[in-house]
């Protein structure tokens, strides 16, 4: 899974293989409960994947460089909060709100990137610090009260409406559309552009890239900024779904997103990874969560089974890959 297979593309057989765990899960749940494989529930699963999926796509970029970003969850929240400030408190029009979310994300990503690339602070620490700072800032800005978007008509359609549903009779929520667009763009960047190439190269051997005369600091900051902007989109999605910016939310989302990335086969040591894998990882997680709930498994058993299946799925995936080569 080197750079060239990083796109949503790749050869057909491999795509099929990567999907296997997911398919097994879906079939399993479908057999176990008649309620599982129904349009409305599949849409619910997709919708549930959207926020985590977008975050996971963003952090995939950073993980491929060999870094990590713990601040994505609270950054998402902070972006939602700033959008609330602009739309509800200042009464600006919707496009400005969207811009604010993405801009805030990019700015914070830029700061994280600067801490990591210029000040050489280990990514774990830099983004842990950012995570705490942003968490506090969200509470401070809002005065620990949610900001509602009741005055911005149409805000909830960003995630909850269905453009696709107006064209074909499949009510795919816009949040899912956004996820796929973000994933598509990210895959394109990774697979086709200079930025993407350096993302892999930095994770593969940063020093060799630097000694190739590449301004590694610049590119690393660019990647963190891009990832931040993607978190901004996640912030927009969650705000739209909840029709509010909830300042206390966000902690713990980073772990879930990173888990999706790693389940998707991206290596935490950097240099390799795919957006498609991340999408599948995020889907595996939400299928699992939803499926176990639909089966009314007791909550404490849900965690046990989720943990076990994550291990088994990754193990199976690995056996398949080893079998192939």
């Amino acid at each position, binding site marked *: 899974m080197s750079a060239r297979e990083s796109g949503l593309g790749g050869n057909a057989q491999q795509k099929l293989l990567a999907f296997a765990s997911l398919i097994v899960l879906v079939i399993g749940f479908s057999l176990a409960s008649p309620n599982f494989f129904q349009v409305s529930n599949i849409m619910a699963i997709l919708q549930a994947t959207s926020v985590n999926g977008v975050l996971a796509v963003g952090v995939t970029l950073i993980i491929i460089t060999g870094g990590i970003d713990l601040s994505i969850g609270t950054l998402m929240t902070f972006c939602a909060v700033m959008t609330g400030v602009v739309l509800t408190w200042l009464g600006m029009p919707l496009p400005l709100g969207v811009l604010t979310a993405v801009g805030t994300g990019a700015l914070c990503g830029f700061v994280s990137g600067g801490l990591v690339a210029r000040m050489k602070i280990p990514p774990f620490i830099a983004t842990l610090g950012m995570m705490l700072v942003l968490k506090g800032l969200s509470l401070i800005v809002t005065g620990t009260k949610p900001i509602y978007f009741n005055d911005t008509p149409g805000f909830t359609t960003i995630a909850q409406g269905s453009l696709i549903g107006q064209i074909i009779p499949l009510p795919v929520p816009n949040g899912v559309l956004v996820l796929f667009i973000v994933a598509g763009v990210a895959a394109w960047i990774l697979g086709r552009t200079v930025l993407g190439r350096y993302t892999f190269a930095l994770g593969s051997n940063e020093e060799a890239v630097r000694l*190739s005369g590449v301004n590694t600091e610049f590119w690393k900051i660019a990647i963190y900024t891009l990832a931040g902007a993607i978190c901004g989109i996640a912030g927009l999605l969650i705000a739209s779904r909840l029709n509010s910016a909830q300042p206390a939310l966000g902690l713990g989302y980073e772990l879930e997103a990173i888990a999706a990335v790693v389940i998707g086969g991206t290596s935490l040591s950097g240099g390799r990874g795919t957006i498609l894998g991340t999408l599948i990882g995020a889907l595996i997680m939400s299928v699992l969560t939803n499926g176990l709930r639909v089966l009314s498994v007791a909550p404490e058993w849900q965690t046990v089974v989720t943990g076990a299946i994550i291990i088994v799925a990754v193990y199976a995936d690995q056996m398949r890959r080893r079998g192939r080569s």
Partner: protein
Amino acid sequence: MSELVRMEAIDKSFPGVHALKSVNFDLHSGEVHALMGENGAGKSTLMKVLSGVYEPDSGRVFVDGQEVKLPTPKAAQDLGIGIIHQELALMRDLTVAQNIWIGREPRLSFGRIDEAKLNADAAAIFASMHIRMDPRTPVEGLTIARQQMVEIAKALSYRSRVLIMDEPTAALNDAEIAELFAIIRRLKAEGVGIIYISHKMDEIKQISDRVTVMRDGAYVGTVVADETPISKIISMMVGRELKDEAVTIPDLSRAETALEVIDVSRGKELKNISFSLKKGEILGFAGLMGAGRTELARAIFGAEPIDSGEIRVHGRPVRINSPAEAVRAGIGYLSEDRKHYGLALGMDVRANIAMASLRRHSDAIGRIDEAALAKIAKDYIAKLAIRTPSDRQELRLLSGGNQQKVVIAKWLLRDCDILIFDEPTRGIDVGAKAEIYRLLNELAAQGKAIIVISSELPEVLRLSHRIAVMCEGRLTGILPGGADQEKIMALATERNGKTAA
């Protein structure tokens, strides 16, 4: 001389590569058996089979006449087979002594390690090798050459009956090679069988008893070293005759100055270094291990800051604080340590070749022109005879020499005005070496200014229009091309004005 090892009809395939095609090999006790072949011929793979790293697809291995299975490195060790791997396999965070004794630490009660004995034993090995090395130095800070020394010491520590040396001298210079050969002769006298892989043809004559040649994964033949001329061995390797061109030193008196280094100093490593380089000139840098040539190159390239001094490019002073600025100023640097500083091993050949030149092959929004890069990559693969199934093969799957060729291709593509090559032919076979020499001459003829740092004196002599010699961080002299070896060695050992033995 009894037979120690016999390998029969060894076959091994990797995806896309048939690396070993029914290869035979045998080794007697008390002999040095050289294994020769072009880059990617399968030498390392064969030795990895013998040392338990790879299991062959088919074929049999006998040790002392008994058929054996070698599923793990440990199994091979237990049979007395030791190996110095071509790609250095050291634990960078551990000290020299800790590396040497890994897995065999002298123990006290409660699983404690007898650190004093560990260090003393390591010191003893270095003493026997006539090398000054503090066993407590972390490996991380060592140059490639010194790491190679550690690998050799580690291999010796096993007291193996069969010792495989996969290009042990690739990073060493003459003095150290002489030291290694003395050790090899001693081991030989003790009855140890040694398999010796090298691309340095002169060494084969000096040290080996028999020579086995491989080509394209197949066994070509085994000859007795004393009775076979080098040219014969080379033609067995490459399948044709190679002719060596002599150096022609061009008249550069009218050429512009490309690079001036004025009074550059950095800590204890570089002391007041000044020299200049003209367009079209190849300046060779000779010196012993640790002379500071690599340090100097890194300083010019901005990989390491300088304390004082000035660097001028085409007469203009430039401030170079990072490699990016150096490349912008038209300076390229090929590092001596390809694995850590030269390559992204997890990426493919094409991406590595393009690494320094991406901006030139992408459009305004940063889209990479893959089609162009594919063509370029294929050109270089053909030009430098890089043995790879395709330009999309991951670099870590290439043989060592072929990896080195990819680094060279990267800098050739970048097309800098001033190119610094640090040990450019490390691990490269004779045929390709000749090709690279030809390329360097061609580049110089085109008006590029070139610095070649090499620990192989013949290489320096073969290439350089002028030869700079360094010792202990000082530039001790610059000699005209074709100067004789004695003079170079004298300057290379000129410690603080005094010439040492």
